[in-house]
Every structure is written in C-alpha cells, then in structure tokens.
C-alpha cells in the first residue's frame, strides 16, 4: 500500500525525478493561479461585481481579518505568506475528493518544506520588525540559561507543524484506503467527508500557528525594554 505520493515516480533522470507529490502540487498551483488570473483580469470597482470576484474578496477579507485578529497588526505584509499557506493546504486537501488524486500534503516532504518555510519566515519577519539584535535577544530571555530550550522549542514546533499536517492528511488517506478494501460502500464516503473537515481544520491550524509564531517573533515582545 502506498502511504506517500513521494513513492510514485512519474519521471526519473539520474538523481532527478518527478513524483506524484510534485505533480499534484503543480496541479494545485495551476488551478489556484489560473483561477485567480481568470477572475482578477476583469475586476470591477463599481457596486456591481461578479460572484467569483465576490468569492475572492470574501476570501481575502476573511484572511485579512483572521491575520489581524491573531497578530494585532496590519495584515498586509503577512497576507501573501500566511494566506498562501492556508489556500494551498486547503485546496490540496479539498481535492482529495477527486478519485485518483493524492493530496501532496499527505507527503512528509511537502509538510516539511512548508514547516521549513515557516521556520525561515519567523526570523525574517522578526529581524525585519525588531532588528537582528532585538530578534536574537528573545532567545536569551528571561535568562541566557533558556537559550538551548528556546532553540529546541523553535525546532520542535517546526517538526510538530510538519508532522501534524502530514499525520492528519496521510492518516485520512490511509484510513479511506483500508476501509475501501474492507467495506467498499458507505463507510469510505463518511470517512472522506470527515477527511474534508479534517483537511480544512488542518489548513486553518497550520496557517494560524504560522501566524502566531511570526507574530510572537515580530511584535509580541514590544513591551520589552
């Protein structure tokens, strides 16, 4: 039984290869970019707007509101990164309804890549907002003795991010696969519905946690001397 789409190789040339994870990721990227381009090429600024434009505006406004609620800051600078995290993961998970499709988020490589992106974004935003010294100082607070624990915390939460998303999505896929072999009717559909809910929740959790980490690095210690 195939657990990860990484194992499905579509093309290989020496050490380079293209697996299902990359292919489905590109599919998701193509859908998102193409859909956005189709809708936003005819944006209207009057009171009458199309349903699709309305959908996008609701999506963007909702993302901004969520980011503003979590970070207590202007959401504009975080929107591309955090918003893309949420939209990509949510779309990748929702497409699991399509037969034959395997969500790239069910691959530990993908979730690790996303977690590494968060791990990198946290210090970048922190340095951008507080300067390198101001950002690095948070690792030795409240006392320099906490430095190793802070570092371990930083790494462990990144691992947790990656494994949490991977585990949830992979387990959903695996459960459905197992259930199909045991009880081909009804049960897999129920579990797939549950998988949809789990996929949306995981996308939300991933994006919100990323935002919390970034916000805590960039502004949570504004009250410090």
């Amino acid at each position, binding site marked *: 039984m195939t657990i990860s789409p990484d194992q499905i190789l579509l093309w290989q040339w020496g050490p380079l290869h293209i697996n299902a*994870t990359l292919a489905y990721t590109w599919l998701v990227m193509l859908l*998102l*970019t193409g859909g956005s381009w189709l809708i936003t090429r005819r*944006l209207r600024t009057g009171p009458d707007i199309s349903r699709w434009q309305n959908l996008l505006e609701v999506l963007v406004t909702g993302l901004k509101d969520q980011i503003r609620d979590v970070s207590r800051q202007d959401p504009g600078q975080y929107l591309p990164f955090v918003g893309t995290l949420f939209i990509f993961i949510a779309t990748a998970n929702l497409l699991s309804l399509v037969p034959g499709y395997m969500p790239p988020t069910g691959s530990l490589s993908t979730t690790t890549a996303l977690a590494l992106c968060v791990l990198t974004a946290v210090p970048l935003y922190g340095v951008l907002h507080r300067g390198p010294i101001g950002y690095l100082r948070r690792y030795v607070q409240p006392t320099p003795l906490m430095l190793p624990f802070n570092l371990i915390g930083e790494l462990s939460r990144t691992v947790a991010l990656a494994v949490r998303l991977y585990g949830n999505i992979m387990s959903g896929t695996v459960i459905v696969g197992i259930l199909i072999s045991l009880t081909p009717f009804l049960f897999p559909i129920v579990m797939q519905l549950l998988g949809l809910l789990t996929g949306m929740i995981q996308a939300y959790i991933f994006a919100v946690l990323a935002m919390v980490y970034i916000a805590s690095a960039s502004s949570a210690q504004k009250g410090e001397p």
Partner: protein
Amino acid sequence: MQIDWLTVAAQIVNFLVLVWLLKHFLYGPVTAAMARREDRIAERVNSAREREDAAERERERLHERMERLEDRRDAVLEQAREEAESEKQRLLEEARADVDDKREHWRQQLRDEQDAFAKQLRRQTAEGFADLARKALSDLADVRLEDRMVETLGARLVGLAEDEREQFRGAGELVVSTGFELDDERRARLTELVQEHLGDDRQPGFEQDPELVCGIALTAGGRRLAWSLADYLDGFERKLTAHLDHRQRESADTESKTESDAERETAATSS
C-alpha cells in the same frame, strides 16, 4: 515515513513561486480593487456630505429669508391696520361732528321757526280774538270792544285797594297805553275814570303800543294796571310751546336712535 529532500527543496521552491503568483494574481488585484471601491465610496460619501452641507446652508439661508419676509409682512400689515383704524376713527369723528353740527343747525332752525310761528300765531290769534270779540260784542250788545276795554280798566281801578291807589298817585306820570287807536271820546272817558277812581287830578298821557295787540294798560312809575288779550294768549302760547317741545323731543329721540343704530352697524362692518 521518509523525507525525500529533493522533493522538499522542490516543494519549497514551489511554495515560494505560488506565494509570488498569488500575490500578483490574487491578493494584489483584489486588494487594489477593494481599495479603489472603498475610495470611490468614500469619495461619494464625501460628495454627498458636501452636497448635504450645501443644501443645509441653502435651506438655512432660505429659512432666514422667509422669516425676514414674514416679519416685514407682519410689520406692514400692522402698520396698515393702525393707519386704517386711525383713519376710521378720524372719519367717524368727522361724521359725528358733522351730524352734531347739522343737528344743532336743524334745532336752531326749528327753534327759530317755532318762535316765528309762535309770534305769528299769537298775533293772528289776538287779531282773530279781537275781531271775534268785537263782532260778538257788536252783534250781541251793540258794544264796541274798545269801549269794553276802557270800561274793564275802569272796573279794575274800582277794584284797587286804597294803598294801591296811593302808590299809583305818588308814582309819577300816568300813562295809558292801548293796542288800538284812541279817539277823543275814549280818551276823555279814560281821563274821567282815572281821575275819579284814583282821586288824582293829573291828566294821564296816552300812547299806542302795538305789543299790547288787544289790550289796555295804565302805568305810573313802576306800577302797572292792565288788561290785555295778551294775558290769555300767554297761557295759550305756553300750552302750544309745551306741545311743540314734546313733539320736538320725540323727533330728536327717534333721530338719535337711528344714528346710534347706524354707528353700530358701521362698527360691526369695519371690525
């Protein structure tokens, strides 16, 4: 559970590319469109607010103007009302004074006419009485009225008390006045009667007095003894005058009532 680090690297690149793509095809255009719409809405709201302010200012200006016009209209109306009232009072006073003048003139005229009528009546009545008496006496007793008057004076002299006779005697010149022409015979008879009954030897003087009309009088100083139809006529005249006055008062009352009715009617119409 395995990590393909090549896939990890590729996914990192993929994710960053996706961030860039969505930033350019999704967040950027949508955010800009929403910002433009918000700007447009804000612009419309501002424009509407400005128009509302302008309308409010215009409304206040017109309101003030209307209030000024109403105040001015009220003042003009009040002034016109006062002028009309004073003009009405002036005209009423004039009319009242005019009516009073006319009434006084009419009364004076009435009095004059009354006096003239009374005088004429008195004279005509006296003359009528005299003619009547003269004719009656002549027809019944073949006696002249003038002779009866002479004799009447004689009878009065007889009826005088002694002290009255004494007063006549010491009172100066005796004069007999008559309303008619005395002939010598009657003068002699009068002289005789006066001298006999007064015991006075003096010769009385004679004069004709048209005022006596039909009468005869003996005067001496401040004393006077007379008989005249005028005495009867005086009583008749008093009754006649009283009757005329009564009629005049009735007429005046009727006239004043008519005037007051007319004034009330005028006041009701003007108010």
